[in-house]
């Protein structure tokens, strides 16, 4: 069977493409480029350029007020590593990311399964779980700040003296806010995945004598893998870039125990240090870490799928 395409020389006698036919072939190519151009331009202006600028900043002595005073590589990177809050912030961000991701995905999956079947209360429950997602994160953080404030807290019945006054309390209080705010959103993503699983598969599993746990373990979870992977990627990325909730609830306290990486970037750039070069260097490190994490996740997903 002749191959569909060949790299061998064309047979003798074949007519070589003329200039006119080359132009005809190039026309669809040009049209493709023309269609892609607006998006490409958008990406170039709003993604590539800022990243290049941050890259330039990260190797420059760039003060907030003083502007660019020339290249100083790799001083900004060494300064970042020497910052007294760098390693505590890295450790805290990783801890927060793991805790948040595990709780959020687990809870969201439970909620999705709870509201998967249509029943009398399904609509009400779905709406209730999703409503917090409609609130901005800053607004939600302010709402929780008031809820946690000992002067006004309606949560006093929980018997907790201080919701934000100790490192452990501050972490878990913030996790509670994030779970409340995002569980419904991830539930929705997982619900779409659940409803994409054919009923025939469950029917077959039932006929094979699979119980609820085995059906969940060997049917639902494997078929929901893509949705769970998407949620995990979103959750890890969001948690590694956490800022608003901690800025509003704890300002990094108590005793610098809740300083996240992005909060450290903010402090380096605008609050105190006024050093855009150092902040950009840390941003590049965060970008690199996110790329590594995402590549690992995508690769793992692809291997499992294959």
């Amino acid at each position, binding site marked *: 069977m002749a191959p569909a395409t060949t790299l061998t020389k064309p047979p003798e006698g074949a007519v070589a493409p003329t200039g006119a036919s080359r132009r005809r072939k190039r026309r669809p190519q040009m049209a493709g480029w023309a269609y892609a151009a607006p998006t490409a331009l958008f990406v170039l202006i709003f993604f590539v350029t800022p990243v290049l600028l941050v890259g330039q900043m990260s190797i420059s002595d760039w003060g*907030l007020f003083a502007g660019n005073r020339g290249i100083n590589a790799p001083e900004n990177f060494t300064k970042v590593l020497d910052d007294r809050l760098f390693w505590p912030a890295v450790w805290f961000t990783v801890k927060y990311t793991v805790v948040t991701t595990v709780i959020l995905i687990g809870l969201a999956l439970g909620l999705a399964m709870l509201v998967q079947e249509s029943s009398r209360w399904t609509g009400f429950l779905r709406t209730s779980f999703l409503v917090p997602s409609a609130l901005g994160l800053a607004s939600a953080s302010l709402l929780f700040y008031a809820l*946690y404030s000992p*002067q006004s807290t309606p949560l006093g019945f929980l018997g907790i003296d201080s919701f934000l006054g100790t490192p452990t309390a501050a972490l878990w209080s913030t996790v509670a806010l994030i779970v409340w705010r995002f569980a419904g959103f991830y539930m929705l993503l997982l619900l779409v995945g659940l409803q994409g699983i054919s009923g025939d598969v469950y029917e077959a599993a039932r006929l094979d004598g699979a119980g609820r746990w085995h059906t969940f373990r060997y049917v639902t979870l494997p078929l929901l893998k893509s949705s769970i992977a998407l949620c995990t990627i979103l959750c890890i990325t969001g948690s590694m870039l956490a800022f608003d909730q901690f800025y509003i609830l*704890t*300002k990094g306290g108590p*005793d610098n125990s809740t300083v996240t990486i992005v909060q450290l970037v903010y402090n380096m*750039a*605008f609050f105190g240090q*006024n050093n855009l070069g150092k902040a950009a260097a840390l941003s590049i490190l965060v970008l690199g870490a996110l790329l590594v994490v995402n590549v690992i996740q995508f690769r793992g997903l692809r291997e499992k799928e294959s």
Partner: protein
Amino acid sequence: MRTRIFRGYRRAVASVAALGLIAGMAACGSSDDDQGGDAAAAVTATGTDDGSELTLWTRAPLELQANALVDAYNKTHKNQVKLTIVPNDDYVAKVGAAAGSGDLPDLFAADIVYVPNWTKSGLFADMTERIGLLPYADKINKGHIDAGTYEDKKYVLPFVLDLSVMFWNKELYKAAGLDPEKGPTTLDEFKTQALAVQKLNKPDTYGTFFGGNCGGCNVFTWFPMVWASGEEVMDPEGTKSLLDGPAAQKVYSTWRELQDAGAVDPGSKDETGATWVAAFQEGKIGVMPYPATLLKTAAETVDVGVTGIPGVSGGQSTFVGGDGIGISKDSKLSDQAWNFLSWLTSEDAQVGVLAANDSTVARSDLADNQYSAKDPRIALINKVAGEPQSKTPYAVNFQQAFNAPGSPWVTLLRNQVYGDAGALAGDNSAVTGVLGQ
């Protein structure tokens, strides 16, 4: 075909050249019209009022005063000031971005503790000669003038003063058997009175409150306790912390004893500064250091007594905070901008606008005025502002050492109230380390 393209190309080049010429002429024109041009215009005490439009930036906490000042100026002058209010948290970033691109407004205000850093960074134009022409120059608040002085040049005038004073709740004092007309005159009296209110055992009511996780709040309210005791918090250069002195230690031990006795509202421990005045305003706090600018607001719900912040064994002091204002390095209308600033320091603005809106005046010769005469509390606040022990601290790295979240000062004060009080020497060295960077 080629000829047509070439002609089109030539036409485009000609158009661009013409536009460039027009733009150049316009630029020349604007240069000629720029009466504020420092090179040509003679410096006067009142500047130029020729109908120019001036731009002014300030941060949101000063919105009330800024609006009142701008409205009054625009009504009485040909120049018109266009005011931009920027959210507090965005202000430094906005000023930084504008400074980098040469787009600063004609006038902008800055938190007075950041002014030394900003003058050193060259964001303001030199006003030394202009300020010297004001007949009342020596009556303008010295703390703000000093904070805005860098290498013997003056860059900033007071915009709005914000002072810290001691507030107490007269109703709670009466209930606790204290004299409702007499606030604390020493740190020990402050402790005794707070404990007396605590002993009422009223639900959700406490002796006192402080921003336990807020560096700026305690700079504002604890530094005056040290100054009133005759000591300093930093060396004059602002590079060495002196927050381990005897008076400072007395301040910490007073708050720690109050905390241990349960007389500090538990909310203090988490307080980042967002709601640190709320509990007093709700009538739930006996006595606490408080921003004087909020007297009017607090008095809506509480019968408020006011006095200066006391030291260890007497004396009174206040942190002369608020914002300074200067002409930006990028302004092309510096003479017109100066017209606004010279008016700002006039009696019309200080008394007619600021005092009328219950704000503290920035001139000692205007401390007694028709508005302060009506309310002895305002007269007292104005008087305390002029006390020699009232200060505005000066340090180029002030923000990083004290106000920033997670600053070494926050670590120090939390250790002193909640944690390891023996860590003082190390914590003080950490503050010095940042100040000296």
